[in-house]
């Protein structure tokens, strides 16, 4: 599912084209570049919605939005790495998993 600028404004409802362009320029949203303007996918649209909610109900001031997005992107980056690491450990033979588990426990309990 892909959306043009105008379609994003229509589905998200809470945003003007000018605002959307400002957010893209600021790098908050990174749509693909299409032959006749930016092209948004569902992830981009969900992110536009998220920024709307941050600015609206969550009352995050304009200047603080990049900070919140940066932290969220870090959390998502970490979640992704954690999931991959967990899968990598799961794919190991039983004795390796047990060794990883034991070392992990001793590190966490200090």
């Amino acid at each position, binding site marked *: 599912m*892909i959306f043009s600028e105008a379609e994003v404004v229509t589905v998200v409802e809470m945003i003007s084209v000018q605002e959307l362009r400002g957010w*893209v*320029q600021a*790098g908050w949203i*990174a*749509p*693909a*570049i*299409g*032959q006749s303007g*930016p*092209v948004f996918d*569902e*992830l981009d649209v*969900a*992110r536009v*919605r*998220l920024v709307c*909610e941050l600015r609206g*109900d*969550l*009352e995050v001031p304009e200047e603080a939005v990049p900070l919140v997005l*940066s932290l*969220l*992107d*870090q*959390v*998502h*980056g*970490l*979640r*992704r*790495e954690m999931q991959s690491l967990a899968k990598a450990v799961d794919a190991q033979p039983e004795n390796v998993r047990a060794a990883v588990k034991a070392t992990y426990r001793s590190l966490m309990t200090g």
Partner: protein
Amino acid sequence: MSDDPYELLGVSKTASVDEIRKAYRKLAKELHPDLNPGDKSTEDRFKKVSAAHSLLSDAEQRARFDRGEIDGSGADTPQQRYYRHYADSDPSGRYHSDAGYRDFEGASDIFSDLFGRGSDGQARFRARGQNVHYRLVVSFLDAINGAKQQLNLPDGSTIDLTIPAGSKSGTILRLRGKGHPGLGDGPSGDALVELTVAPHAQFSREGDDIIVELPISLDEAILGAKIEVPGASGRLRVTVPKGSSSGDVLRLRGKGAPKGDGRHGDQRVVLKVVMPNTIDDGLEAFMEEWRKEHAYNPRETSGGNQ
């Protein structure tokens, strides 16, 4: 958990619209699912709180609830998919940042091995500037045949880009030095442009093969024919053999997408027999006669009419 919207928001039955909004915003800041990725119970609570808020902020619904005509769940908001659902299932991780663990590289061999790989996928600060990521949607035929294209970037600058013939979705083009400027004397980063190939109305692609459906008439299917068929780089001719069926595939060797080593994939032409708009009396009479002697059952495994 209580389903009473007043209790959920922690306000009294006589709370003003303003008090309700304030209470909701305070809870939203704490509970918003995108600020608590991975926490299901917080998400459930947020859903209830949102539903309570939308019920109580609608004067008519609130009055109906107060009169006991509807219960607290009466104003279920439609299921919203939060950003994190998309972010978690995005294989490219294009918004993900590695800033939260970039310094692990020095602390652990395994992390430097694992995360050092990502010079293609992730931007990182060193002396050189950060890479900038773009995604570009290209037309199906431009991707097959190659094209030159000028990108207008969000910051107003432009980049001239050569799309190599045979590009696929996910192909990443690296433009050296077109990223962010370096720190100090460091060189600029690169611009990484990920291509997405737009679908085409007629053609589709499997690996290096191009697939096109070719409608043929009843007489062409029975008698065979030489027919022109659209190809990715111009029109092609195919010979439809006598007695062709829908689903038969004609392979035009070397007429597919370039593989990058000078060779090409094939174009596969999938036949589709289309009946005439009207079955005239002559055809009908002929078929009636024909089937007396030649009836066959294509649903049997042998299937043929030999």
